């Protein structure tokens, strides 16, 4: 789950990281009032979950409250890469001398939480990694002791900071960002840019926090920050039902158990000349209700011309899946052809349940894909 810039900024501020003051607004009037309260030059920033806001015109500098209001009129309601801007952050415009990057991520290869810093801030870190990988300094926090103070100082020295006061402040910010990463159960926490002001002090101008969906159960306060505005309706329903669903552009709906098999099923559909309409993993041990919800979500996509079930039972019981399919079809009758390939745990019972339905059986994944592609062409 992604947090908005202003939500991340508030979390940074609570951990003592210097951020720019200001507020969030949804109307041009509110933007003017916030700009008046700040006094002086402000920046108006669109709050949407996409990169490249600045290039798209979603960020504007304003010298007066009236200018800020005018900028807000332009930015609010604007469409950036398919998302409508509903909120803007109005913050004091800061002058600074240079930009630094600071981020905390998980490194799978070393199985550690890694802090990354670069003297080349202000651009995406992936870009720096491509063009000038030596400009990125990385330090792995200890798996049990966490980020040690000397490591945070090493990071500061590593990006060329030398002034004792500046090194101390950078180390404090790095430690605070690491703490935020751990305490919020993030998968990414970054400040970009962290700017160096004329007096040598540091300040976070923009930040990004992405939370681990698997850890939200213990963070109701963070779950409450969820903004579903960029989440398609079907994906929201799937998430609430505990299903992973990602809509794609094709016409063959897929229901599969297991992420690996779901990806492979999409690959096979494509290999047989079809286009998958979605990725859908009902997860391990899905019961009747989940299967029913999944089928309704697949059928809510008007592009779907055939549905293919590929279930290889292990922890998932094939008879439960069959019951879910039958229950869903009883509630939402449809003329969309369905191809079922169900094998594994309790498969005999599963096939018995489906024998009375109109589903087209298939013995193998390839046969199911072939039949689904043919059915989608003729339906």
């Amino acid at each position, binding site marked *: 789950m992604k947090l908005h810039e202003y939500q991340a900024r508030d979390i940074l501020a609570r951990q003592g990281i210097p951020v720019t003051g200001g507020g969030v607004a949804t109307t041009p009037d509110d933007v003017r009032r916030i700009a008046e309260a700040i006094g002086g030059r402000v920046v108006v920033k669109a709050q949407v979950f996409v990169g490249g806001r600045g290039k798209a015109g979603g960020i504007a500098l304003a010298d007066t409250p009236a200018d800020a209001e005018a900028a807000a009129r332009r930015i609010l309601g604007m469409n950036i890469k398919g998302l409508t801007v509903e909120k803007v952050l109005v913050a004091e415009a800061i002058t600074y001398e240079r930009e630094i990057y600071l981020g905390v991520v998980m490194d799978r290869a070393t*199985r550690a939480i890694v802090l990354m810093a670069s003297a080349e801030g202000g651009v995406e870190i992936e870009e720096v*990694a491509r063009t000038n990988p030596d400009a990125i300094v990385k330090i792995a926090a200890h798996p*049990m002791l966490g980020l040690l103070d000397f490591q945070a100082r090493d990071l500061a020295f590593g990006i060329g900071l030398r002034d004792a006061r500046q090194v101390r402040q950078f180390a404090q910010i790095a430690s605070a960002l690491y703490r935020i990463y751990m305490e919020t159960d993030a998968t990414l926490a970054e400040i970009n840019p962290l700017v160096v002001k004329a007096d040598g002090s540091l300040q976070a101008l923009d930040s990004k926090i992405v939370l*681990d969906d698997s850890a939200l159960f213990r963070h109701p306060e963070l779950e409450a920050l969820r903004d579903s505005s960029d989440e398609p309706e079907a994906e929201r329903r799937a998430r609430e039902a505990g299903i992973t669903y*990602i809509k794609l552009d094709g016409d063959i709906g897929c229901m599969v*158990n297991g*992420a*690996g*098999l779901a990806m492979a099923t999409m690959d096979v559909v494509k290999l047989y000349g079809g286009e998958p309409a979605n990725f859908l993993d009902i997860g*391990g041990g899905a019961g009747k209700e989940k299967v029913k919800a999944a089928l309704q979500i697949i059928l809510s996509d008007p592009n779907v011309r055939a549905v293919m079930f590929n279930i290889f039972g292990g922890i998932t019981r094939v008879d439960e899946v069959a019951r879910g399919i039958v229950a869903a079809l009883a509630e939402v009758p449809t003329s969309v052809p369905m191809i079922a390939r169900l094998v594994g745990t309790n498969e005999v019972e599963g096939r018995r349940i489906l024998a009375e339905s109109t589903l087209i059986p298939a013995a193998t994944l390839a046969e199911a894909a072939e039949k689904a592609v043919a059915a989608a062409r003729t339906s």
Partner: protein
Amino acid sequence: MSILVDSGTRLLVQGITGREGEFHTRQMLAYGTNVVAGVTPGRGGQRAIDGAVPVFNSVAEAVAATGANVSIIYVPAPFAPDAIREAAAAGIALVVCITEGIPANDMVATVRYVHERGSRLIGPNCPGLLTPGQAKVGIIPGNIAIPGPVGVVSKSGTLTYEAVDALTRLGIGQSTIVGIGGDPIIGTTFVDVLALFERDPATRAIVLIGEIGGRAEIDAAEYIAAHITRPVVSFIAGQTAPPGKRMGHAGAIISGGEGTAQEKISALEAVGVTVARLPTDIAQLVRERL
């Protein structure tokens, strides 16, 4: 021969009285696995699975009473990291965690702790292991596998069943099937399992099933080039996955143009691995290379 689990496995089930734990313990017993104990804190002294398995309050108690040497975990995600640590602390040599949805950051310290205790962790978010004819430790359906010369290692659960089923249909058996799990941080990697298969005289070919995201398959390719003498056949899932979308597994995401299926397929092919286009083609390719 086999790796990690066999007829000498004395299995302990953590979470044996839960819905999944109970269901799959029955399946493991039916397969002939030697399930010696169960653990559910607060249920010590009871017997589970129609009286067949004694239940203990802690892993340490269960180990002392039964000599359990492998543990399998069916505990819900919020409690699973503690269950893993408890098993490692009690001296269990091999800990297998089936649980899906464990917060990724919890696994950082947990994996380190397990290593420090000298235990090996498989998973989390994995289907476990199966040594056909000897022991089923996890949820891999026993009826799809037969004993034989092919070692199978995979990040995925059900996709592995697909490949194993196809092997069995061609009459090609398996030495051991290992599901390592699809999370970003796992206890045992492709490279670890490849090393075990290379040392196992009964394993004459290896099947490696990977997916998009991370670079574990690239590391595996480098290891294969340097250390593996047996033929390797592979399949990489997610060739049609769009970038930036997490495809179910927490680990399966193409980010910043890295971790694509094509990149992995190229790395594996460059070191002589045969990469299948369909998961069901794996079996035929193994037959050709045996």
